[in-house]
C-alpha cells in the first residue's frame, strides 16, 4: 500500500506492505537506520520513536497505523528544545557504552520529560523500564534525565558523573 507520513517534519511517501512495521520502513525504505531493531516484540525499547508525540515501539507499529501521522525519530529528536536538552545531557555525561540502545533510550526519555517535566527517581525508573540497556548504563541514564530536566544530581548519582573524587 502507498502511505504518506511526516518524518521529522518532512513529508514522505512509501510503498510497503500494510503490516510492515514502521521500524523496517524507516530502516529499509527511508534509509534512516538510527532507529534500532532489538527484539521485534516490543520488549526492549530499542526501536522507540514518537508517533504524534507519543512514544511507541516502531517494531509493533504497522506502517498503516502511521499513515498521515507525525513521526519523530532519533535523527530528528534534537529539532525541538526538549529533545536537544536530552541529547546534550546524554553527550555531556558520556552515557553510551556500545550505544546500540541509546536512540531508544533518548526517545523514551524525551517523551517522559514532555509529559512529566520534573520526574521523581521512581517516575524515571518506572517510565524507562521498558528500555533495556544490555551494557547497563542505567546510572548515567538516570543522571542524564535529571540533568535534562534541570534537576540537581542525586546523591546517588555522584559516582555516575564524569569527575570522580577518588580519581582526582
Amino acid at each position, binding site marked *: 500500500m502507498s502511505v504518506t507520513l511526516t518524518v521529522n517534519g518532512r513529508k514522505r511517501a512509501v510503498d510497503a506492505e500494510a503490516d510492515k512495521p514502521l521500524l523496517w520502513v524507516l530502516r529499509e525504505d527511508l534509509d534512516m*537506520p538510527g532507529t534500532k*531493531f*532489538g527484539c521485534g516484540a516490543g520488549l526492549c525499547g530499542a526501536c522507540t520513536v514518537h508517533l504524534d508525540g507519543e512514544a511507541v515501539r516502531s517494531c509493533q507499529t504497522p506502517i498503516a497505523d502511521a499513515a498521515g501521522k507525525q513521526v519523530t525519530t532519533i535523527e530528528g529528536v534534537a529539532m525541538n528544545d526538549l529533545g536537544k536538552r536530552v541529547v546534550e545531557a546524554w553527550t555531556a555525561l558520556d552515557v553510551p557504552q556500545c550505544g546500540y540502545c541509546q536512540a531508544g533510550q533518548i526517545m523514551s526519555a524525551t517523551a517522559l520529560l514532555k509529559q512529566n517535566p520534573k520526574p521523581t527517581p521512581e517516575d524515571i525508573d518506572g517510565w524507562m523500564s521498558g528500555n533495556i540497556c544490555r551494557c547497563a548504563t542505567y546510572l548515567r541514564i538516570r543522571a542524564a534525565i535529571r540533568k535534562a530536566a534541570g534537576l540537581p544530581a542525586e546523591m546517588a548519582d555522584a559516582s555516575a558523573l564524569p569527575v570522580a573524587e577518588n580519581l582526582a
Partner: protein
Amino acid sequence: MSDTIALSRRSFLVASMAGGAALTLDASVVLAAASAAAPADVLNAFVRINADNTVTIGAKNPEIGQGIKVMLPMLIADEMDLAWEQVRIEQTDANEKLYGVQTAGGSTATPRNWIPMRQVGAAAREMLVLAAAKKWGVHPATLSTAKGAVIQTTSGKSATYASLAKDAAAQTPPDLAKVTLKEPDGFQIIGTSKPGVDVPKIVKGDPLFGIDTRVPGMVHGAVVKCPAHGGTLASFDDAAVKAIPGVLAVVAVNSGFVPEGKADTLVIVADSWWKASKAREKLSVKWDNAAVTGFTTAKYEVDAAKLVAGPAQTNVFKAGDADAALAKAAKVVTADYEYPFLAHATLEPQNCTGLFKDGKLELWAPSQAPAGGRAETAKLCGLAPDDLTIHMTRIGGGFGRRLMNDYMVIAGQVAKAMPGKPVKVLFDRTDDFRHDFYRPAGWHRLTAGFGADGALTAFKDHFATFGTDGKPVRAAQMNPAEYPAQVVPNVDLGVSYMSTNLATGWLRAPSSNAMAFVFQSFLDEVAEAAGLDLPEFMRRTLGDARELPGERAKFHTGRARGVIDAVCKSAGWNGRQKGRGFGFYFCHLGYFAEVVDIAITDGALKVDKVWVAGDIGAHVINPLNAMNQAHGCVIEGLGQAMIGQKIVQEAGAITAENFGDFGLMRIDAAPREIAVEFVKTDFPPTGLGEPALPPVIPALANAIYTLTGKRHRRLPLELV
C-alpha cells in the same frame, strides 16, 4: 570518510604480535622498510598528520562498548605530545599483519597494547623531532615537543607537526624497542577522562553498527536454522518462498557447527529483510537431528547429580592428600552449588554484510575477533585468507558472543553464492537466543576441612560440567589455581564431564562469572564455620604479600588484600551485618572486592548500593570510561543472579524466544548507587571489561544469607 582505509593501505609501519596466543600479553610492533607508496604525511600505520595540524590516529581494535576506540589512541597521542583537541580517531580495517592483534576479548587490550601503542606514538614524535633538528641544523637533544609542535626553548623556534610531516615521514623509522617512553609524571592524556569518540554520532542516530551497513544494490538475508544444535539439513522445499515477489534465493550454508559438506542453515534472500523474515513461514524444511534431540536441561540435571556424587573422572589440581586430611579434620563443611547455561543477548542481533566480486570477498563485520572470522570464513568459502577484506563496524554489544564468527561465515557463503550482490544477513531475536554459544552450566560439590587449631587443612571440589574425550567444552575450563587451592596444604580439584550438543562460548569474565559465585559463596560458609566474616577469612588465608604461581597469571596476595581493605573501609564493613555481603575475585589480571547492600520487602529483593574497589595497576587510562565499565560489570552480574537468567533446553533445542523468557536487568532493578574506587599499585595497567563482574554475584548471595538465613547455592537466585 575513506581515510580509514587509506590509513592502512598507505602505511609503511608493520605491526605484528610476538606469539599471538590469546593470553600472550607481550606485543611488539616491528618497523618495516619504508614503502615507496607511502604518502608524505603518513608517519606509520597508526598515524597520519593532516595539513591543518590535526592528527588522525587509527583505532585498531573492535569497539564493543568497552571504549577501546578512544583508549588506544590516547596512548599514541600522549607519547606524541598532542593536544587531545588535535586528535581525530578512525577505525582501521581488520589486518593483523599491519596492526597486530585486533581482538576484543579477555580484557587483554590494555596489558597487550600499553607499551606497543606508546612506542608507536613515541616513534612518530622522534621522527618529527629529527625532522625539525635537520631543518634547523640543531641537535635533536635541544628540542622538546608540546601540543603538536616541536619547540626549541632557547631560540624560541617552533614548528607545527603539520609543517614537519613530509620531512618526518622521510626519516628512517626508529627501532621501537629503543624509543624513549615518557615517565608517568609526564603523562598529559593518560589518566584523564575522555568521552567516547562516537557519542555525538550515536545520539544523532548516525549509521555506525554492523546492522546499519548499507552498500548500493544490497539485498537481505533471514536465517532458518536447525533448532537442535548439531542437526543438519535433510531436505527442503522452497517453491512457495520463491513464488513471493522480491524473494531472490534460498541458500543452504554451514555455519561452522557441522562437518564440511553439510548444511545447518538456510538463508532466504530478498529485497527487504522484513520480506525475507516473513517468507520463512512458507519454507518447508526437514532436518537430520535424531542424534541431538535427546539433550535436555532435565537430563543434564539428573546426570550432574549422579556425577558429583561419584568419583571425579579427572583432576585439574592436586596437592597433599585431601581425603586423608578430611578424615582427620576436626570440622568439615560441605555444600553443592550450581549455575545454568546463559545466553549473551547482545542488543544488536548477530549480522554481517558480504560482497563477493572478482574472486574476492569483502565483509562488513561486527566481530570481536575478525582474524578468526577471516580464517574460518575463507576455509568454508574455499578462498585464501588474503582474498578477504574485513571492515570493522561499531558493535552493538559483544560480551564474548562475537568472539565467535558464525554470522561472518554465513554471510560469506551467501555472498559467494550470489556474486556481485551485497548481502546483509541478520538474525532475529529468537535466532539470536536459540543459536548462541552459551556459557556452560556447572555443578559443584565442595568440601572443606579444618584442623583442631582452626586452620583450613583440606579443600575439595568435584565439578561436573560438559566435555568430550576428557576435555572441557569451550569456556567450561576450571582454573587449577582457583582460590584457595594455592594456600591450603591438601587440595583436590576434580572434574567430570558429560556431553552436550550445544555450542558453548565465552561470556564476559568467562568461567570467573560462575566460579566466583561458587567459591566465594562457599568460602563465606567456611568463614562462618571458622567464626569469621569473609573479608577477615580472606586476609588470614592470603597471608603475607607475595606472588603465588598460577596457570593463567600470577596472583599477588598483597594486591588482593589491598582491595579487600579498601572496600571494607569505604563501605564501613563491620563484621557480619544484616543485609550486607562481600565478595572478592581475581581474574583478567584485575583484583576486585565488592560489598552489596540489599533490602527485601514483601519478598522483593532490592539492591541499594554496591561498593567496588579494584586494582588494575598503576594507571586508570580513561577514568570516565572506567566508571562506566565498572557499573556495567556490576549490574550485569546482579542481573545474572536476580533476573532469573537461565537457558533451558528441550529436545536438543533452546526454548527461549525473546526477552520475556530470558530477562536482562532493567533500570528499575539497578542499584541507586555504585561507588567505585581504584587502588593504584606499581604494576602495569590491565583491563577493565570483565574483572569487576564476578565478585558482585557472591556478594549478593552472601548478603541475602545475612537477611534471610538461607544459603542460595543455585543461580539464578530464587528468593522463595
